[in-house]
């Protein structure tokens, strides 16, 4: 066995010290009739070399995005990750440590959490951030639960249809269990019909699932009039350019933080960003790092406001969450530090320019048309007038292009539509090739 040390002689010594005659005896508290009594039926052990070969075999059966040109988005994006992110995040002192229960020997992680929280506030314009949640989708549902908690209205929440369909599915799952009505409306113009004094919160996404930028400030006014809270899911990369949610009246901001320095990873682990207005800080779920001083007056950091959390409050906690995505909050902190204000501006601008170039080139072709005149950021929808999205995707794959995400699976009325994401990594040549292949 590869990771254990003790020799048979040492094991014997240890058993003697324990006063046992065999290792089996240590399991006497398990009644015999509960013991398995056979070997587990799983494949036999592999040494490092064999494991590596086996995994190479599996990896080879995947066609990853380094062998393809990726225009897939829909909540998971192929942004560039500077080498410093991997170099720092792969330090064992970071990734083999755990939740900072002992602040004296966890100042590294605690300070990173504090810096991460600050960076997220700077990026979003919000007052306070937690130290992260699982992913964008669970952050969205946690924000809705938090809003119910704050407003003490638990009968209804409202979600726009342009929020990521999987986030909406998560919300349906959670809320079906606790019996809160989830009302889904097509767009913000319908909000007046559904907002009432029992509505706790409205969830919007901007840029929304289709890439369009919502008029967040106008929606915020509408929502606040009814006494509900506005929860907004954002694309953190867009905030190099777009008005920050904190400057538009949003109460709770959530985001999928994968874009900030994390590879695609087939969907996870990712980073759930959550930030809110100051007055809600004691209702925030998840871990929070706070500044304090030690015995000698040195500035330092600790986990704080822990009386919200499950290990103290148990069934009265704000959430059952007991971890943050520490390693991915670290990656985001490194990414935002190295990008800086200008880097974030530049990456957002490159996305904006390239996405618009791609959209304009594609819609010049007879075969495609736009479905919306709303402004968009790095992602857009095109309609295939020949209604053969599957055929298009297959054809593009033959040219090693992942052309987009078919929308029909979530929106039957958009079965002839494709969602295309263009990040700063895509070159003019790649975009032209996409246009050529889809148009041919």
């Amino acid at each position, binding site marked *: *066995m*590869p990771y254990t040390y*003790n020799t048979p002689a040492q094991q014997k010594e*240890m*058993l003697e010290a*324990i006063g046992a005659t065999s290792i089996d005896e240590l399991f006497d508290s398990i009644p015999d009739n509960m*013991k398995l009594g056979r070997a*587990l039926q799983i494949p036999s*052990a*592999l040494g490092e070399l064999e494991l590596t070969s086996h995994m190479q075999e*599996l990896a*080879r059966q*995947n066609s*990853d995005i380094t062998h393809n040109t990726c225009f897939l988005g829909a909540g998971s994006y192929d942004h560039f990750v500077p080498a*410093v992110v991997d170099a720092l995040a792969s*330090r*064992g002192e970071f*990734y083999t440590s755990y939740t*900072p*229960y002992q602040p*004296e*020997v*966890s*100042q590294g992680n605690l*300070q990173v959490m504090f810096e991460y929280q*600050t960076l997220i*506030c700077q*990026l979003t314009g919000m007052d306070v951030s937690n130290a992260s949640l*699982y992913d964008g989708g*669970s952050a969205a549902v946690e924000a809705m639960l938090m809003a119910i908690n704050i407003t003490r209205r638990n009968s209804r929440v409202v979600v726009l249809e342009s929020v990521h369909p999987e986030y909406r599915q998560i919300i349906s799952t959670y809320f079906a*269990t*606790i019996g809160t009505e989830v009302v889904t409306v097509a767009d913000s113009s319908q909000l007046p019909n559904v907002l009432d004094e029992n509505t706790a919160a409205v969830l919007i996404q901007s840029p929304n699932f289709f890439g369009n930028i919502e*008029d967040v400030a106008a929606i915020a006014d509408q929502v606040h009039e009814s006494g509900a809270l506005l929860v907004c899911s954002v694309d953190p990369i867009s905030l190099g*350019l777009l008005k920050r949610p904190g400057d538009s009246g949003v109460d709770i901001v959530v985001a999928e933080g994968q874009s900030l320095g994390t590879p695609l990873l*087939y969907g*996870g682990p990712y980073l759930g960003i959550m930030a809110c207005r100051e007055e809600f800080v004691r209702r925030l779920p998840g871990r929070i790092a*706070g500044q*304090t*001083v030690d015995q000698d007056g040195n500035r330092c*950091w*600790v986990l704080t406001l822990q009386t919200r*959390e*499950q*290990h103290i409050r148990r069934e009265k*906690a704000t959430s*059952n969450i007991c*971890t*943050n*995505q*520490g*390693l*991915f909050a670290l990656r985001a902190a490194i990414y935002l530090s*190295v*990008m800086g*204000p200008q*880097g974030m501006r530049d990456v957002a601008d*490159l996305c904006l320019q390239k996405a618009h170039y791609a959209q304009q080139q594609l819609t010049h072709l007879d075969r495609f048309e736009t479905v919306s005149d709303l402004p968009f950021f790095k992602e857009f929808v095109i309609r295939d007038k020949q209604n053969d999205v599957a055929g298009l*995707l297959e054809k593009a794959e033959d040219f090693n292009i*992942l052309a987009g995400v078919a929308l029909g699976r979530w929106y039957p009325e958009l079965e002839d539509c494709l969602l295309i994401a263009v990040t700063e990594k895509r070159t003019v040549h790649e*975009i032209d090739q996409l246009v050529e292949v889809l148009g041919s």
Partner: protein
Amino acid sequence: MRNNHATQLIFELSTAGRNGVVLPQCDVPVQSAETLIPNSLLQQVNPPLPEVTEPEVIRHFTNLSTLNMSVDTHYYPLGSCTMKYNPKRNERIAAWDGLAQLHPYQSEASIQGMLQLLCELQQMLGEISGLPAVSLQPAAGAHGELAALMVASAFFRQQGQHRTKVLAPDSAHGTNPASARMAGFDFVTIRSQEDGRVDVEHLKENLGDDTAVFMITNPSTLGLFDDQVQTIADLVHDAGGLIYLDGANMNAILGITRPGDFGADMMHFNPHKTFSGPHGGGGPGAGPICVTETLRPYLPNPTVEFCDESQMYFLDDSSEASIGRVRSFFGNVGVLVRAYCYIRTHGPDGLKRVSETAVLNANYLLSQVKQFLDVPHGDRCMHEFVASASPIKETTGLKQPAMDIAKRLLDYGFHPPTVYFPLTVPEGMMMEPTETESKQTLDAFAATLRKIVEEPAETLHHAPHTTNIRRPDEVMAARQPIVKWTETAD
């Protein structure tokens, strides 16, 4: 060497005009942002992030890392967290492009290797747990608990039964009651007996036709296997309820006994504990759940299945009774890849030996520690045990001796055990050595602990003496929360 370089914040290193990255020139015709997006939706100034260079970023975060204790650098017997060695081979493999650079919406045909891996992991977890139906979607142990309780809720709804209560012993992790509440249940605490096992009489008093689920951690947070578990399962099942097993302590029983064989209907694994995913300073984890065939239809969608006809792996979201999604995309796949590597590295005999060695190490440490500390729950344990520093209160006059001992351990370069948990043991110190520590390390730790217990009370009370910072004021942090840096925060 004390590292004092790291304590400046990245914001304090900022100098206007510095830049950490240079992005490529735009290679498409540039249009002004104002022509593409209405001005009212645009930010007029760049986000106020710090302005630092790449070398500054490297030095800053590298220095910060050296202020952490970690498994790679220190013995870390944090009870209930299973801080075992994190194999480097798994890190390398998980970072390969062929596994890491896959988009969640690629076609199934283009990710057959990944789907095969996930499908095999489902099968292996089903076999290890004795609960054949598996969902890999939950993102953490607590998330798995919640998902499984939702499964139970959906099951009872389908059966037309209105069951409102979730029960768990007082020694349970705080996530159990918190998850129960989030899943819409009322929570009832069941007492433990003095010997740490569930008080079956108290359980009986609380069972009824409103009982939905009894959550049990077995081996318990005291490191004891509750041999009444079959009786408990029978009682709960007779009342029409389900048994949930909190799998936090699976490191003790791999290949020895299976939750499905001792009455559990549902459980979660913590692959970041049992199967050695690195803890990442507090995450990510994962929380795959395993349930009985009866409950399979209610699992979150999708699962990975193999189609005999097409000979292809595919994502199956066909179950109408499914509770739906609990997380976007497929879950914490990177953690699952490492778990897969870990299980394949060990095989059936290796996994059993993991548990045997973990239990041997824990019992050996117990045999040493009980010579100078109270261990209230007997001379034997599973993968961990809880010592109590209570008796030292009288001899030393220390009010919180477990805390003081923990802080003093830092001076000697050991990460302390989990202290003050479970809540049922006064001045508790929960020690979990794991299988990846040597006898020498355990001896050194025990000898240090003995030395500390014999040190003057003053030395303990003022510990740590050698760390960069000492005993931060947590009360002040909570009363006047400063949770972000501002120019005037100091």
